[in-house]
């Protein structure tokens, strides 16, 4: 081996220092010296001249030496040599490239978890304090060079909203100034949402808090974040594009790397990012709008304020082929979610820029980075549309299945409540319930936010966190019920009734006429609160009177008398005078009906408080079919008592466990309780797949290791046959589920099979539970209604995505062999398509990582069978989600079928009907009314559109009507309103701000209707106003 020093490596860096008018690039030279320590001269010669530096080589070893060379403006050869006196010891030519002039955007966030690191209520207060401190830091660095001044991005709007609600006015004003100046950037979304389980209108409302704050403070919202949640509903692209957001930078953790060896990632990065990562692609919304989805791939500075390894990491980034000069460098002020904001990064940036010309560091924001990056994006940046079905968070939502079901129900009920409040305010003296609706939407958003619980899911903190979280769902539902009930009662009380008596008003919340089964308790469920109304003595009308709480504005709920509860009445449709068939059914404690245990219990009692009404009606349901309900309108039914009690029929009990109506015949095995046949009588066809491993409605319980025993029947199947419906009741038990009560219902004249399940769950941890729906459709095709997108799996998923469980909104449709089945779930959002899938919850969240997790993402091959498995519960979680849940759970499903291929339009209509039953309220003749006995208050005619919001405008100017065209064709529809005069119709943005004409146009036809034309798969938000002379 030679004893002469050698040039081992020459490494040009990204570091450029200013030298006079030019720049010099730092080049690192690695030299091996096998001999004694010696003094040598390191020389570099190139087109720009010669640079020499004396260096001391340590004995017998390698050493690295830095040399500043003039910045090469183009590719050139530089000859490096080592000299000792006149003697050349070594020589090496190197081709140098012009170094990139990197601009590094140091963007400070605090990852927003509403909880997880502490109780949610405590975290809210912490974030307020962080924002307080941020104001002070911004002022403390006001004298710094502009690039080093304090800036931050508020990751989600909830923290700023809370700050604005609670901080002193003067501090709020100072925060407003920072927002206006762009030093504090507010992003678009309310929270890091579990988008897959959100409802369409709810996800749109996730933009409203930011929009309100932006209006208040005069700042712009141009970017969105979605952090910690490796799953994104395709509808989010629609919502963001519709709100004018161009830059979407979700920070997607690689949770499947959190094991050894790592598992396959959640999407195919090679396909999505052909130019490497960090990188982006245009995420195309279903309607064609686009946002830049930027995946920073974990690049960032972490919590250390001195940015210790920044140079090396930037060097690695460039060496890896990063093609842009704008670099996004997120940092956080501490090693914890919900970290504070700190000023240290400002000092680090100032000191760095004092030393280096490039990379140039700047304390920055998302908006500033995007402005820098956008001009550099290649024209050929890839475009992808589709969903990234989350396998962690939406699955984890079923770790608290009861609350998730309540919130899913609230999604639908909120649409109904808001619609009814608008219609009641438009037709009566009802005061629009803006505040209650706002609070209810906020609660629904809080619940669907990704933070499900405490990081350590056992102990008092976990329990308190769970209760704080779940309160949001229950409160959203309660407020929605409150608004619905009050508004509907107000409409009911303004109907011109034909005389004294008891009347039932049935309201159809959907904007098309329909016939629907009605199931209503014979004692109404009370709403949240009451209005303090002035009550006067009718005998002394001039006396002052007194205030009394009235749940329904100026009255109490009606409770039908005993003869009505007993069924001794005729039910008369007052729109045509027809007597309507009905039946009265008893509610048992385990009935798969809402609030069955409570209703059953209360119905057994005497008078409430000892002297109020006897609530026996709570234990009974009135069932009938309401025919020809007007679009977003109502019909009036009278309950006319009979002079004599109706002769009691003996209940018809068939021996064979079979139920049937005009459309279906359903049969169970008497011994096992398994559903063995569902025949479509129109198609003359068996619908069930006898070869499937599980029967219709069979509970499948798994541990991480495998499937447990099948349920066993605990009572003989029973059939109930009434004037309106036939019901098949099954009782069983299964591992971890001591009592399972299932009811299948067929209603006369209605082509629908309803399946409801009440599940008594014990606290056995780690289980996942599915309900099987196996159909016999050869070579089936699947279609789902996802959030603001009708999807064909797996084509509409992003490349490489896992989809063991997918979230659906109103329906899944399977077609094959000349038959279509439409399946709807009111309570459980997640479903496995085609088979009972392995599951792909990440090791980061799993409690025990099951062996079956080792599998590739699904392919179309998974869909060989028309089988569905609804995920009812999932508890194999080690953090954030619950490892155990217990209680009485309710799940409701509906099925309908068609010969041939059911169209998307029909699926959308039927799915909407399945999850949106009619609303009812009792009234009597209390005042002269002005509304007719039957009326449509809002209707969509023409091409089918989905009505989302129908509400008062945020700014008080008119009404907002939001419509969605889910179909692949342009749709034109006329919307008619049965109240007010609305001569002006105008398209506005999703957040009701700027006018917006993209994708839709609208014209007012007359005072009470407008026609809207929507591009395929797009949204339209229409503002209706009346000019005033």
């Amino acid at each position, binding site marked *: 081996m030679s004893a002469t020093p050698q040039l081992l490596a020459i490494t040009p860096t990204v570091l450029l220092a200013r030298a006079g008018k030019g720049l010099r690039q730092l080049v690192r030279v690695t030299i091996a010296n096998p001999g004694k320590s010696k003094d040598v001269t390191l020389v570099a010669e190139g087109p720009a001249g010669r640079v020499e530096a004396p260096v001391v080589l340590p004995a017998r070893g390698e050493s690295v030496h830095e040399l500043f060379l003039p910045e090469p403006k183009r590719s050139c050869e530089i000859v490096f040599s080592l000299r000792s006196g006149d003697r050349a010891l070594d020589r090496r030519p190197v081709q140098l490239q012009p170094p990139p002039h990197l601009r590094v955007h140091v963007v400070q966030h605090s990852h927003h978890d509403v909880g997880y690191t502490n109780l949610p209520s405590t975290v809210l207060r912490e974030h307020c304090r962080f924002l307080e401190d941020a104001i002070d830091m911004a002022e403390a660095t006001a004298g710094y060079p502009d690039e080093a001044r304090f800036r931050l991005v508020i990751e989600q709007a909830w923290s700023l909203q809370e700050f604005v609600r609670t901080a002193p006015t003067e501090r709020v004003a100072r925060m407003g100034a920072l927002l206006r100046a762009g030093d504090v950037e507010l992003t678009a979304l309310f929270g890091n949402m579990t988008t897959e389980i959100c409802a369409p209108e709810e996800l749109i409302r996730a933009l409203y808090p930011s929009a309100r704050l932006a209006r208040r403070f005069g700042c712009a919202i141009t970017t969105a974040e979605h952090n910690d949640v490796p799953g994104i509903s395709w509808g989010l692209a629609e919502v963001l594009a519709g709100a004018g957001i161009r830059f979407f930078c979700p920070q997607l953790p690689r949770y499947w790397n959190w094991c050894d060896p790592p598992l396959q990632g959640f999407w195919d990065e090679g396909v999505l990012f052909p130019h490497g990562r960090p990188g982006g692609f245009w995420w195309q919304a279903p309607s064609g709008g686009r946002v830049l989805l930027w995946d920073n791939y974990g690049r960032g500075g972490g919590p250390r304020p001195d940015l210790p390894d920044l140079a090396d990491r930037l060097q690695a980034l460039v060496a890896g082929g990063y093609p842009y000069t704008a670099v996004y460098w997120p940092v956080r002020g501490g090693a914890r979610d919900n970290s504070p904001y700190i000023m240290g990064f400002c000092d680090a940036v100032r000191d760095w820029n004092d030393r280096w010309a490039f990379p140039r560091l700047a304390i920055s924001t998302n908006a500033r980075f995007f402005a820098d990056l956008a001009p550099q994006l290649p024209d050929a940046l890839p475009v992808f549309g589709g969903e990234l079905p989350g396998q962690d968070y939406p699955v984890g939502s079923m770790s608290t299945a009861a609350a998730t079901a309540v919130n899913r129900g609230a999604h639908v009920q909120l649409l109904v409540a808001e619609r009814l409040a608008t219609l009641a*305010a438009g037709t009566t*003296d009802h005061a629009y319930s803006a505040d209650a609706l706002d609070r209810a939407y906020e609660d629904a958003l809080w619940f669907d936010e990704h933070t499900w619980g405490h990081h350590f899911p056992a102990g008092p903190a976990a329990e308190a966190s769970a209760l704080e979280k779940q309160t949001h769902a229950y409160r959203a539902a309660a407020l929605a019920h409150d608004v619905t009930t009050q508004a509907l009662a107000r409409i009911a009380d303004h109907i011109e009734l034909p005389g004294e008596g008891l009347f039932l008003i049935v309201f159809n919340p959907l904007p098309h006429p329909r016939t629907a089964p009605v199931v209503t308790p014979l004692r109404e469920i009370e709403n949240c609160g009451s209005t303090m109304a002035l009550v006067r003595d009718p005998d002394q009308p001039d006396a002052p009177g007194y205030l009394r709480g009235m749940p329904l504005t100026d009255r109490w709920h009606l409770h039908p008398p005993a003869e009505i509860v007993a069924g001794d009445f005729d039910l008369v449709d007052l729109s045509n005078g027809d007597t309507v068939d009905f039946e009265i059914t008893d509610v048992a404690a385990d009935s798969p009906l809402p609030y069955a245990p409570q209703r059953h219990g209360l119905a057994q009692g005497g008078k409430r408080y000892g002297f109020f009404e006897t609530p026996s009606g709570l234990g009974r349901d009135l069932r009938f079919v309401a025919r020809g309900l007007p679009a977003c309108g109502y019909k009036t039914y009278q309950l006319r008592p009979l002079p004599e009690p109706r002769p009691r029929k003996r209940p018809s009990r068939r021996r064979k466990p079979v139920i049937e109506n005009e459309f279906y015949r359903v049969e169970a095995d008497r011994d096992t309780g398994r559903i063995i046949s569902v025949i479509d009588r129109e198609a003359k066809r068996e619908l069930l797949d006898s070869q499937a491993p599980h029967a219709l409605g069979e509970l499948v319980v798994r541990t991480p290791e495998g499937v447990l025993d099948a349920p066993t029947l605990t009572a003989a199947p029973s059939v109930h046959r009434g004037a309106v419906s036939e019901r098949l009741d099954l009782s069983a038990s299964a591992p971890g589920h001591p009592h399972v009560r299932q009811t299948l219902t067929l209603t006369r004249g209605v082509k629908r099979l309803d399946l409801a399940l009440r599940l008594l769950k014990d606290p056995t941890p780690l289980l996942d539970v599915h309900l099987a729906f196996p159909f016999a459709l050869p070579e089936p095709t699947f279609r789902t209604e996802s959030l603001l997108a009708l999807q064909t799996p797996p084509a509409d998923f992003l490349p490489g995505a896992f989809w063991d469980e997918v979230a659906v909104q109103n329906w899944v449709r399977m077609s094959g062999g000349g038959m279509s089945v439409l399946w709807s779930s009111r309570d459980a959002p997640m479903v496995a398509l085609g088979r009972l899938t392995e599951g792909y919850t990440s090791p980061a969240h799993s409690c025990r990582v099951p062996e079956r997790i080792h599998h590739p993402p699904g392919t179309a091959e998974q869909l060989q069978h028309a089988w569905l498995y609804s995920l009812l519960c999932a508890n194999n979680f080690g953090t954030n989600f619950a490892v155990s849940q217990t209680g009485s759970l309710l799940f409701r499903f509906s099925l309908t079928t068609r010969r041939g291929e059911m169209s998307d339009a029909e699926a959308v209509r039927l799915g909407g009907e399945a999850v949106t039953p009619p609303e009812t309220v009792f009234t009597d003749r209390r005042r002269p009314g002005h509304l007719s006995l039957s009326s449509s208050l809002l209707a969509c005619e023409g091409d089918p559109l989905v009505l989302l919001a129908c509400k008062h405008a945020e700014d008080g100017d008119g*009404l907002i009507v939001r419509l969605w065209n889910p179909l692949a064709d342009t749709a034109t529809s006329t919307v008619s309103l049965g*109240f007010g*005069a*609305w001569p002006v119709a105008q398209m506005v943005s999703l957040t009701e701000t700027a006018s917006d004409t993209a994708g839709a146009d609208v014209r007012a036809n007359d005072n009470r209707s407008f026609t809207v034309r929507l591009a395929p798969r797009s949204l339209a938000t229409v503002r209706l106003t*009346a000019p005033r*002379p």
Partner: protein
Amino acid sequence: MSDLRAGVLGFIASCALPELGPGRYRYSLACTEPTLYSSSYAAMARGLLDALGDADAAVWAAYLNAHQDDDGLFRDPVIFGTGWYADDPLWCGRPHLTCHVITALTALGATAAKEFAWLNPWRDCNALVAWLEQRDWGARVGWSGNEIMNVGTLLQYACDFHNDARAGAAVACLLDWLATHHLDPATGVWGDVDVTDPIWRSHAVQAAYHWWPLLAYDGRPFPHVERALDTVLATQNPLGGFGWGVHNPAEPFVSSACEDIDSLDPLARMLGQTTHRADEGRAAIRTGAQWVLTNQTPDGGFVFIKHRPFEYGHPQLRGEADHGAMFPTWFRLLSLAIADTAVPGSVPDHIAWQFTTCPGMQFWGAPGVRP
């Protein structure tokens, strides 16, 4: 001082911009610039409440008169040509502003400095009738209401304050024509609209409100007054106001300041012309006044429509939701003054209302009747 009076005066004072000179007012606390409308509302409202004693009336009137164009119309440079005021429309442009300024000047003891040359096209009866025939008597009858009132009021003013005899003849021509055209004897209101529909009835009454004062000022009886009273009474809604959704279709019964005064004012004037349904008329006025009072906000002012912001055609004429603004404060105060004068006790506070003798809206009786 009564609560109502103190509250209103307090709100008006909060909108004053004394640093810019006497009579300078902004429209609401959300606005920044003084506007001529706001100055007029302040003078009219303070005049009604007999609270101009400490005002520098001469300087204030001079400020108003400084904004008169050569054609006699008043122009507010802040709003002219923008928003609703683009192209100076007849229904809400300078003629509309001028109708307010002349009342304000009268309250301040002054007169419009220049004569109204702008009225020339209407001084000729034939031309006036031809113009009337061209108005929209259908769906936009409400807009025609404002247009005809503006011309009629300024003709009356020209006659009585500028001694313009031709204008006086034109007024007579106008009132004669109104008594015989587009008027339905069965309803007592004008317009080719179906008044069985509550919304169109509201439109028709709102239009008629703008013409009945022209008749009242000149001491002419309202044609078919009993039927007109029936029609106006039918506009009262369950909340006591008079809206049915024309101005607030989202909550039709939460009526606007315009909807309310457009029924309250004629009801009050009709009580002096007929005994038909007089008890009902008085009760309706009392109830209506109670409703109007609920539109007062904690700042002492009034809102145009409860819980809703309202922009009067320009950002400098904007009132935020549930905050007082000058136009509704004056207009609702005027409706209370008229109600309380017609049916004493309609307003709980005892206020000595001071009407003007100027044509337009803020007069009582028939000041245009010459002895």
